[in-house]
């Protein structure tokens, strides 16, 4: 089958070729996605194999009995499943949170303050003559992004690599830095100061220092000059910006820089979203209940507060007494103290593959792999919706089937 849509990273490449259980044209990450690997064999309650119906009923019971369950994950499943998750969270008076809260949600906070001057990957491929990767390393996290869209990509107006200047700003010389025309190495935690310095230069002010955040000011003047002279520039920012000192304020400052540049020329800024449908994990609750993450339904209506209702905050402060974890592995990716609380509460897991969260879960429900064994719609990192395909038959239930049944059971219990 041709035009297979890859369900690994946020680039959601749509040109894979699937033949005899093997996939071609995709990157190493895409190939690993479609390769055969260990699966959760059957639904389980406390380690004992049960039917799907029994596991789902037990899960519904846990969610309904909890005072405030956390429903977390959602970045690696389809929009149709996410929608059901939001509905279940509302019914059980729980918290809906998703992987972005430990990833790109600071960018969402910045967007709430400033808006976002954005563009699609197609517009970048066709138009961008200056591309900046800031705290992002696509060579290892989105391997085909540079070739398809941002570095070597041949577009309508930018026909060749030499028509495009590529800048990498990072604290270490990443593999992506090796693709760049200009590499700007900065001190960890100085993104905000450097963005402020660039804003000052673009505004025409003088920097009265020899260096900012480890970068000689002459280099910052050169960079600002390059930015002002671009015809169509893009800043792709990564977790180097959102997970370090300043977090959302770094992104907010960068958006302000882009707003300033837009008085002179055309610039866009966009996050390098990680999981293939982490955008959907935010967009779907946004169109259902108005918020992208950190949503609490305990009062019967949605409230948004990242300081309280993100998964890490709720776990560290022991504010949730059960958890449904889907398409994600917080036991591997949350700070130790958050995982400690996860170990103490009843956990339900829905996932195709065993992971660290499986080892902590009371109810484990195996699911079909979206994009291989189940279909649905997902948002690419730039907000473009793509339909992922079902390529092979499976005995496993899809996330949608599991959650439809779980919603039904929850409704039976709470009315």
């Amino acid at each position, binding site marked *: 089958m041709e035009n297979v849509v890859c369900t*690994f990273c946020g680039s959601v490449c749509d040109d894979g070729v699937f033949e005899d259980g093997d996939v071609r044209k995709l990157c*190493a990450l895409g190939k*690993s996605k479609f390769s055969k690997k260990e699966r959760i064999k059957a639904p389980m309650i406390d380690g004992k194999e049960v039917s799907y119906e029994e596991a789902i009923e037990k899960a519904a019971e846990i969610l309904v009995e909890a005072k405030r369950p956390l429903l977390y994950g959602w970045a690696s499943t389809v929009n149709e499943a996410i929608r059901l998750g939001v509905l279940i969270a509302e019914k059980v008076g729980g918290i809906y949170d998703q992987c972005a*809260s430990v990833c790109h949600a600071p960018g969402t906070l910045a967007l709430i303050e400033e808006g976002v001057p954005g563009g699609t990957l197609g517009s970048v491929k066709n138009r961008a003559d200056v591309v900046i990767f800031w705290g992002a390393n696509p060579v290892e996290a989105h391997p085909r992004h540079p070739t398809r869209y941002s570095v070597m990509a041949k577009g309508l107006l930018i026909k060749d690599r030499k028509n495009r200047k590529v800048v990498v700003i990072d604290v270490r010389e990443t593999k992506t830095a090796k693709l760049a025309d200009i590499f700007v190495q900065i001190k960890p935690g100085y993104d905000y100061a450097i963005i402020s310095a660039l804003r000052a230069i673009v505004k025409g002010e003088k920097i009265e220092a020899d260096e900012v955040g480890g970068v000689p000011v002459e280099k910052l003047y050169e960079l600002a000059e390059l930015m002002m002279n671009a015809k169509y520039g893009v800043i792709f920012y990564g977790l180097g910006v959102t*997970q*370090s000192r300043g977090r959302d304020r770094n992104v907010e400052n960068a958006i302000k820089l882009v707003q300033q540049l837009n008085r002179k020329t055309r610039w866009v800024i966009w996050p390098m979203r990680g999981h293939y449908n982490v955008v959907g994990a935010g967009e779907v609750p946004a169109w259902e209940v108005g918020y992208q993450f950190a949503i609490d339904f305990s009062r019967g209506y949605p409230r948004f507060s990242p300081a309280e209702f993100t998964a890490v905050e709720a776990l560290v402060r022991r504010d949730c007494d059960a958890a449904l974890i889907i398409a994600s592995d917080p036991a*591997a990716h949350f700070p*130790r103290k958050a995982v400690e609380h996860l170990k103490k509460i009843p956990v339900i897991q829905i996932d195709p593959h065993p992971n*660290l969260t499986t080892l902590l879960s009371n109810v484990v429900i195996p699911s079909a792999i979206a994009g291989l064994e189940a279909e649905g719609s997902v948002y690419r990192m730039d907000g473009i919706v793509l339909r992922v395909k079902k390529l092979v038959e499976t005995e496993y239930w899809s996330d949608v089937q599991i959650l439809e049944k779980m919603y039904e059971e929850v409704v039976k219990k709470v009315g």
Partner: protein
Amino acid sequence: MPIEVEIITGRTIDQGKTVEEKLTEEYFKAVSYCELNEEDFRSLGLKEGDRVKIKTEFGEVVVFAKVGSVPKGVVFIPIGPYANQITSDDTDGTGMPLFKGVKGVVERTEENVKSIKEILGVE
């Protein structure tokens, strides 16, 4: 002698390739090491395959040490359960832990690197 460092975490291609196979040896290898600057590596008296203990106010962890392309005073660990023993759980009201830029100390150690199940405390 322990040295003071700033710890950053991040993705790598090997972490990505094995992320859906977390209970395998390949994933263990992909996430249970850190990268140090060559000068720091030498000043700690390390050679390939040696282990280091990294301590922060949030915890400590033993990992394998490698030379990597990081500046002096910076340690890189692939995202995952080892990194998260020492990352900050303080989100500053944003929900986002400080996964990059926690201060800590690194020293050479003879202690073993724990298995993933030991790290999680389920074995």
